[in-house]
């Protein structure tokens, strides 16, 4: 199989924007000339119910259409999912997991019980979202954390791409909300912590 494909899984709760995050990230990656997939896992769609969404990124056209079972990167948009959803399921040996939590990466590592080869990052995305956007919406901050933890895309490019998409999405709702989201992404980028 083409090893060059990077697979990402987003865990969230219905209404937290896990799908939107995957779409925004996918589009930002596409603009750098990569081939992408971004898709949600559809189940009963209820606010608050555990949901997941996915990305595939590759320099070559992506042909595979099966679900993602062994992701390279996992993002957890809500810390209360841990213990209820198997967020580390199938995570590759040298994979990365990024969790929205106030806890430190080493505390989170213990909670998750993952192998030493897996890198753990944490960020208080709720706190950041409340400070900037005024609502505890963790999806856009987590985009900043993803870039900080993996360097998978150029950060300035991501900001520019997300800004353009949000300007369309929030058309008529003022530039303010777009700026606040961008601020949230920047803050999360700065505050995302890995282990020493």
């Amino acid at each position: 199989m083409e090893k060059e494909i990077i697979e990402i899984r987003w865990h969230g709760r219905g209404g937290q924007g896990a799908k939107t995050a995957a779409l925004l990230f996918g589009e930002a990656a596409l603009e750098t000339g990569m081939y992408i997939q971004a898709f949600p896992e559809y189940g009963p769609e209820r606010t608050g119910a555990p949901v997941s969404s996915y990305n595939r990124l590759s320099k070559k056209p992506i042909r595979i259409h099966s679900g993602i079972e062994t992701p390279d990167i996992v993002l957890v948009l809500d810390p209360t999912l841990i213990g209820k959803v198997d967020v580390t399921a199938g995570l590759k040996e040298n994979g990365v997991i990024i969790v929205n939590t106030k806890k430190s990466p080493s505390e989170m590592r213990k909670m998750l019980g993952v192998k030493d080869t897996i890198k753990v990052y944490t960020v208080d995305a709720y706190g950041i979202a409340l400070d900037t956007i005024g609502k505890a919406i963790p999806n856009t901050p987590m985009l900043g954390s993803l870039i900080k933890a993996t360097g998978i895309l150029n950060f300035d490019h991501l900001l520019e791409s997300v800004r353009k998409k949000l300007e369309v999405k929030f058309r008529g709702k003022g530039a303010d909300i777009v700026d606040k989201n961008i601020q949230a992404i920047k803050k999360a980028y700065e505050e995302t912590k890995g282990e020493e």
Partner: protein
Amino acid sequence: MKVVAKTANEAMAEAMRQINPDVVAAYPITPATEIVQIFSSFVHDGLVDTEFIAVESEHSAMSACIGAAAAGARVMTSTSSQGLALMDEVLYIAAALRLPIVICEINRALSAPINIHCDHSDTMNVRDSGWIQIYAEDSQEAYDSVIQAMKIAEEAFLPAMVTADGFILSHAMQRIDMLEDEEVQAFIGEHKSPYNLLDIDNPITIGPLDLQDYFFEHKRQEADAMMKAPKVIKKVADEFGQKFGRKYGLVEEYRLDDADYAIVVMGSTAGTAKDTVDLMREKGHKVGLLRIRVFRPFPAEEILNALKNVKVVGVMDRADGVNAFGGPVFMEVRAALYESEKKPDVYSFVYGLGGRDVKPVDIERVFQMIMEADKGKKIDRLNYIGVRE
């Protein structure tokens, strides 16, 4: 040409916008809802000149499409699953009246039990309705095929449906190379209508009672149109390939040249299967794949030609025949191969019903089974892959 990120639903809606049909009559249904929703916003925003008819059912949607097409309009709609099933009797009428209507169809399992995810039972249910059926492997092909289908339908005077796998494609965003609006318009050309109900200088009667003395001739004529359709489909695909660089045929062969073992598959699973073929080739297995893109008209000759030197064939059906001899694609592929000198052994593999995920490992298992069958192991003619036994 511009590169964008779109789901199959979004891409098909964009293709509809670029075609700019005179009439769209539609009733939204999961997972094709977005196609109708996005297109209706195009209508609202004045991006198309389309008369959008919001009907109360899919039966009415197709009936309105027929009326509009008979009156000389360029007509499109979109549906899925139960919606397509509700259109069923009207689909036959569209085809027999030879009206070039195009459906953007999203494959979803037919109830019961109720399910919203992908399988091909909905389009298999209407496979003999007289509609051209094109199964897309990815969203790019869904987009390209909708544009081609409009031209094919108007040259063959047969209705056509382009299908994309529900959720797997309909809701998955991928890179799409979109054509410019003018390129699409130039490609599809002037609308062609077989006749026009509103031409008062040349009044005609449409849909009269047709009994023992004429009905058979009209059905024979419809069959003839379908028999001639492959030529039209190939011509339109060639023209598309020359103009825009993406090549399509009735079938797609993948690493079949020296293959001893082949699987036949339709829709998005073909992509996953191509990766699996590469994986198995690396391990030294002489395996290949045949993707049927156009299931109606059935490309028997192309299939025979592609598989004539293969030892064993596994046909993967995303719909069950329930009490038939195997899956619907299997039965027709096996019948086509009856004409071959070497008569490859053919097995049926039903998979992925109701959106059950199909992974490379599932496809590898199909290959393993047909390879074992070749070595003398007795396996069932009909197999179910990925179901809990």
